[in-house]
């Protein structure tokens, strides 16, 4: 299953809410959620901790828009819009944590 998160992890609970509920699978961080995949922040340790359980992707155009393309955490896969479509199509279902 694919979980889609679009809210900033430090001012909205959706990222952590997702981690509480979601079974092992895939997560894609888009829009303001891309901040969760950047190095050096308060959430980095938490994200590293859950990497074994989830394959984490980030939408690169959203990371570039925020000036953080060079700060992507190791182990997180960058995808473009086509890659996002492939993830949606390749999973049985998906949940958007709006």
């Amino acid at each position: 299953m694919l979980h889609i998160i679009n809210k900033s992890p430090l001012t909205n609970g959706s990222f952590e809410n997702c981690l509480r509920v979601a079974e092992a699978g895939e997560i894609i961080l888009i829009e303001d959620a891309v901040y969760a995949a950047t190095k050096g922040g308060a959430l980095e340790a938490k994200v590293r901790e859950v990497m074994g359980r989830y394959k984490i992707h980030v939408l690169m155009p959203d990371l570039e828009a925020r000036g953080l393309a060079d700060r992507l955490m190791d182990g997180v896969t960058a995808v473009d819009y086509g890659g996002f479509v492939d993830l949606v199509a390749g999973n049985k279902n998906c949940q958007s944590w709006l």
Partner: protein
Amino acid sequence: MSDIKKFMFVNRKAPHGTIYALESLEVVLITAAFDQDVSLVFLDDGVYQLKKGQQTKGIETKNFSTTYRALEGYDIEKLYVEKESMDARGLTEDDLLVDVTVLTSKEMGALMSDQDVVLSF
């Protein structure tokens, strides 16, 4: 002039994901035309608004981050960033595209109390 008031714009939202950051900037520029004492503060995710190197071509939206550099030309020179917000996001002053004054939460609170008008975004 005695009718000059202290206006503070409190920016707490990340850019691009919502319209708040851009709208705040529009109102700040309007306020600049009225010769008031304007301060901009960046708290919580608002500090991301000032991150260097924003490239919005891929998401096909306006890259308004360059406008922060033009504020000086409108005599808006009081920009404040909260240290705690930067630390939590792994950012330092070197990551920001304009010169700012870094304040602690406590100092920020005092500055806020001192204003005549506080506008929240």
